[in-house]
């Protein structure tokens, strides 16, 4: 409540200063302002509701000043007034202010009394910038390098071709020399000694029973090895990388943007499952992030990513043009990647909250995965190895105080592994 009162007070103050401001501002001042400062101010204050090129909670702001001046005949002073105290302007009966107010469903813009004239000018300078097309440029650049790569490929082929021709000539030469020498020998009646027929090597091999037995044993053992290897990988889906209904890039989210895993997979802290985030969690951010502006590659272009965001909107039932939920949602049928068998009980919160294990320990470098895959084998041997090697995080946990003291005395160690705590007992995971 206090804040609101404070804001109202400042609104009133501002309203009175409005007229003074109006008097001193000129159209010329439009040329002033630092776009770089403006960008950071824009991102900090305006980006929650405004985009440069797209209508969101508020109107698109590119060239807003120019537009207002051209279409409505409003000058910068009006903008200053509006930004600092839009409800005031609306109340004053300003025609355009009320038009905008009604157009956006009667939601007044938050007042920003803390922004100075310079600040607003900087922001306006930022909005006056021409639209850059970084995505397209990047794509062009990529094709450029591709072209370069292919030219170097051509030169390699030429070298290799020349070498091949050289070798063929060489072989031909040798053949001719041999032929000529034989002709000479025949001409001079020199008999070439015949090589005596020996038992062929393979026959000798077959006749040697000892060798045969050794080979047979070797053959059987190695095939047994491979059969065992084959059988033990049945049901192990390490590297399983299914195609998901929406191309969700962990690389973009967790890597490029550094979002904490547990922001989306919040139930990992308290539950046995890490939880696939529900679509409302996605929409927390994607209400305002409607396009992709990060790095692209030929395979994953901006259009591709934007298309995936549209899929999310369709699933969540979000109408981006109206900025409203349609109510027609359809849940996303993700393909489950990590499938632990039913008879193995695994609890995320035990590992994440109690033990403080990093998600990456089991799930691998998720922040680098464009497409998510199963990193770990999820076999029992893999679980047990970790339990043998990992120390229990007993610090600052009153639960462990007594048992840690007693067990470390018993085993004569300072740090206890999960195995020493009883983490290898069958019933701890199988019930």
């Amino acid at each position, binding site marked *: 409540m206090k804040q609101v009162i404070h804001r109202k007070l400042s609104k009133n103050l501002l309203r009175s200063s409005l007229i003074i401001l109006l008097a001193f501002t000129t159209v010329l001042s439009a040329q002033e302002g630092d776009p770089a400062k403006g960008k950071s101010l824009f991102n900090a204050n305006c980006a929650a509701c405004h985009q440069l090129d797209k209508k969101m909670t508020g109107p698109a702001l590119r060239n807003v000043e120019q537009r207002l001046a051209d279409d409505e005949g409003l000058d910068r002073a009006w903008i200053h007034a509006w930004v600092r105290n839009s409800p005031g302007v609306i109340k004053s009966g300003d025609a355009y202010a009320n038009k905008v107010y009604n157009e956006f469903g009667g939601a007044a813009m938050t007042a920003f009394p803390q922004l100075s004239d310079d600040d607003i000018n900087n922001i306006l300078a930022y909005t006056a910038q021409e639209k850059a097309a970084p995505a397209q440029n990047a794509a062009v650049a990529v094709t450029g390098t591709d072209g370069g790569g292919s030219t170097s490929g051509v030169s390699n082929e030429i070298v290799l071709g020349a070498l091949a021709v050289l070798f063929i000539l060489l072989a031909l030469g040798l053949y001719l020399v041999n032929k000529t020498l034989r002709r000479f020998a025949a001409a001079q009646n020199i008999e070439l000694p015949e090589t005596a027929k020996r038992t062929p090597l393979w026959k000798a091999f077959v006749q040697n029973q000892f060798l045969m037995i050794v080979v047979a044993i070797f053959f059987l053992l190695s095939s047994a090895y491979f059969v065992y290897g084959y059988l033990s990988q049945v049901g192990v889906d390490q590297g399983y990388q299914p195609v998901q209904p929406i191309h969700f890039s962990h690389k973009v989210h967790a890597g490029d943007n550094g979002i904490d895993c547990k922001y989306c997979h919040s139930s990992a802290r308290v539950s046995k499952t890490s939880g696939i985030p529900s679509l409302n969690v996605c929409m927390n951010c994607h209400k305002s992030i409607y396009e992709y502006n990060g790095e692209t590659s030929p395979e994953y272009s901006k259009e591709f990513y934007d298309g995936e965001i549209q899929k999310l909107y369709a699933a969540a039932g979000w109408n981006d043009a109206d900025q409203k939920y349609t109510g027609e949602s359809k849940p996303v*049928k993700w393909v489950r990647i990590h499938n632990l068998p039913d008879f193995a009980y695994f*609890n*995320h919160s035990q590992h994440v909250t109690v033990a403080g294990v990093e998600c990456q320990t089991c799930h691998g470098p998720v922040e680098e995965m464009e497409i998510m895959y199963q990193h770990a084998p999820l076999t029992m041997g893999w679980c047990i190895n970790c339990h043998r090697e990992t120390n229990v995080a007993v610090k600052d946990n009153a639960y462990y105080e007594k048992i840690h003291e007693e067990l470390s005395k018993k085993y004569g160690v300072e740090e206890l592994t999960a195995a020493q705590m*009883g983490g290898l007992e*069958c019933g701890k995971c199988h019930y």
Partner: protein
Amino acid sequence: MSSNKKYWKSVEELNENSSIVETLKQNEFVEEIPTDEFLGDKETLESTSTTRRDFLKYIGFSTAAASLAACEGPVKKSIPYVVQPKEIIPGVANYYATTIANGFDFASVLVKTREGRPIKIENNSLAGTHGSANARVNASVLGLYDSLRVQGPKQDDKTISWGTFDAETTKQLTEIAAANKNIVLLTQTFASPSTDKLIAEFSEKYGNVSHVVYDAVSESAALDAYQAKYGERGLADYDFSKAMTIVSVGADFLGDWQGGGFDSGYAKNKVPNHGKMSRHIQFEANMSLSGANADKRVPVTPTEQKLALAKLYTLIVGGSVSVNLPEHIDAAVKKAAAELKAAGSKAVVVTGLQDVNAQTLVLEINQVLGSKAFNPSTPIKTRQGSNAQVAQLVTDMKAGKVAAIIMSGVNPIYTLPNAADFAEGLKKTELSIAFSLKEDETSSLTNYIAAAPHYLESWGDVELKKGHFALTQPTIRPLFDTRQFQDALLKWTGNDVSYHDYIKNTWNSDVLGGASFNQALHDGVFTSVAYAYNGASSKTVTTSETSLKDKKERTWVGGVIHGAAVGIGLKEEDKDEYITTTKTSTIAGSTTVNGVNVVSGVAAAKALASSAKSNGLELVLYSKTGMGDGQQANNPWLQEFPDPISRVSWDNYLTVSKSDAEKLGLENVHVATGALDGSYADVTVNGVTLKNVPVLIQPGQAKGSVGISFGYGRKLGLKDEMKTGVNAYELYNNFETVQDVTVKAASGMHEFACVQLHNTLMGRGDILKETTLEIFNTKDKSHWNPIPVVSLNHEETPVTSPDVDLWDEFDRSIGHHFNLSIDLNACTGCGACVIACHAENNVPVVGKEEVRRSRDMHWLRIDRYYSSDDTFEGDNEKKDGFSGLFGDNGSLGGFGEMEHPADNPQVSFQPVMCQHCNHAPCETVCPVAATSHGRQGQNHMAYNRCVGTRYCANNCPYKVRRFNWFLYNGNDEFDYHMNDDLGRMVLNPDVVVRSRGVMEKCSMCIQMTQKTILDAKRDGRQIKDGEFQTACSAACSSGAMIFGDINDKESKVAKLKEDNRMYHLLEHVGTKPNVQYQTKVRNTKEA
């Protein structure tokens, strides 16, 4: 030398002219094999284009295709919410307090839900009354997922919409009301303030509306008696924890007597405390749970019960009634009266006789005794039905006087003895609507079936006792297109509010008195202090005087306001004990209640005595612990639940005493497989005959009486497997549980599915230790609970000594070490733990055939033992007295005799589950190490490792391991809840569902202990005593099962381990179990 001997295989061969022998010489079978039947007619066979070779090709291809398809792993989908409700976190359980009020069972419970699905019922510890769930309430969660529920409103077998339903029924009701014809609401007991109010509003709107409350198993006599005496329709509220002497005349108050729920109070005084425990004397005909728990049980027929009660009345209150009782019963009554008098205000008398006079006498006896266990200010409201009104309704309907009938929560076509009359009357109504979960016997005959929601999908409120309220709230969105009765009433009265809002309004105005509705909803219960005792009726003049018992010094800790201690200011032992001396001068007179004339005082005793006339055999109808009134007959858990007394599942039967069975030519035999077979009998009451009722010879059944339970013999609305038993309601004439009966043996034998075939203990005191209070108080532990000894170097050494142990002891002093203590004194055998175990651990139901083959899957069984002498002590003495094989004291004949239970045996219950032996015999014989021991004392079972050799089961001395002979889930051969998608929703996601060919057993609910540990780890705290629970210990409301960590020396279970009564099952085997038992002490001392 050749012989001329002729060998023959069958007698038929001796008959020279036998055509069969002749045929068999030529053919293998007498009759031609009907190959044509399955090969079809020749023409089609010849004209078919599929040749044999094609057929083989198809087979080859499909096999190859199937095996190829199987090579690829299945793709599993995960579908998250679009908008996740903030209270649901996948993998974390939510609990909701709600109340079951289905007309028969009333209890405040907690419902455990996972991902929005209710999966288990637990006790609500905040509830002051009816807070413990019995076996049926525990099983009721499965009823939600019943695949045969009605999924939407129906009109004459057509599914309609609720809109149509509303329009048509409202129109018809309005027309009927306009024509000034009768509308009847026939409902279960709702005991709901909001529903009462709604019905009043409905009556106001339509006029000519009468509301008839109908309890399938009537308590009308007790209600009439109470109403006549106290001016309010209700049942007397007894708190057995305040009684030290309990005399019950035919009341199974540990069962379903007057709505049940008395067992936890009863159990409190059953455990010897400072050398004192309660004494319970039971006069009854059928062997009931109460009789089994009684310190003294006197088998008497209902007729004799009436006389005994009249006699008891004269002995305690005074007056003279001439009563002619057999000598031993007379003596028992006199002794009981003396004990009651001696106990004074700590005594209580109850009766289950459905007779107004009997009920009146009991109320008066308790009043004269000044019984503290009886609180007339808070009558129980959970039964309100009136026999007279129901009878009148049937007559009216038959006469065509009822134009519209709306039913809810009742199934009169099944439960009424004169169902045919009711059906005839139903045809004469213009409009009949049944709110029902099922298309059952009644709803299938009505014009409209209004699909009703399960109680876990409904709103509701209940006044369990006067001033004790409880709320019902939905724990899941309705699975089907259902509407509850109250919402329909709101529609009919043109009220737009939802029933939830209606309840909230009613509570805010009438009940809460300013307290928070949300708090009441959270707690599930609300106790109102505004309600006061509104006095006895004018017929009885009661003067009470309350005085301080003694004027001892009192330690005041807190403050004193108006002469009363505030809060916890006074130490428990110093609390003032008040004595209320009540003087009653009863004027023998009569009151008329619901058309029933109720007399009181000696006149009632005389009337009771004179009504006691017997014409041969008497039938006592009762309700079984598992099935109750039969509304949950389609619940496989309850069908497979073995009756605590007879240990028979999947059946009801005629219980007959041994001597009567011999007279009538009825028998029970064990067949070669070990299963039990029983004769059939035809049972005739008042011209109605139940044919082929299976007979079970019941030790302790009073001679001259037989019993049949209600709840079986349902025909509609349940799967074929559940159509078991016979319908005893057909014999329930005039709502009298006692009927004159004739029993005639019929041909054939019935196959029972009985899980315990050996009835007696054979003097093996090391299985079930029992002693008397006298010995317990006076003698040393070594006398009544000795530790078994073995010989070591010719010296007797206790088996607990490490010297005689084959094993090296593992140090278990670090971390948790779980123990479960089972108090045989407190265990009433109610079986709530058995069902709770099923629900928690996904224990499969195997069906009658498999149970008969002893392949039941119960992880927890409650063994029931009868003594073969009058007492178990007698058994032991007899066994110890054996000398030699033959002769009078020979063991050969002696053991044979001991196999037969006595006519009136002592009974003991013993819950047995995996004993989690520290030196487990099962673990050493497993060839694949599938079963192993944990440091916390639990015997682990890794199902995925088990290869099914069953060595472990063979080597288990307690026989607690269960083998999956078949795949019990998703298998049409076992068409129970695990065979349909709906029923599988009840499964606990934390426990794996076992597959065919693996051994399983009690895990000591390791998923629960692990969860408790994890919660503590996450919070970074130590675990307090009481946090560790198993499904059975949590379900046990009598305090018989205590679970905990014995390494926590302050825990209850650690103290119980040091208790003198503690012993281990078969201690001499040296298995060092982690389940302890507390020796049973019986208060046999007579006054």
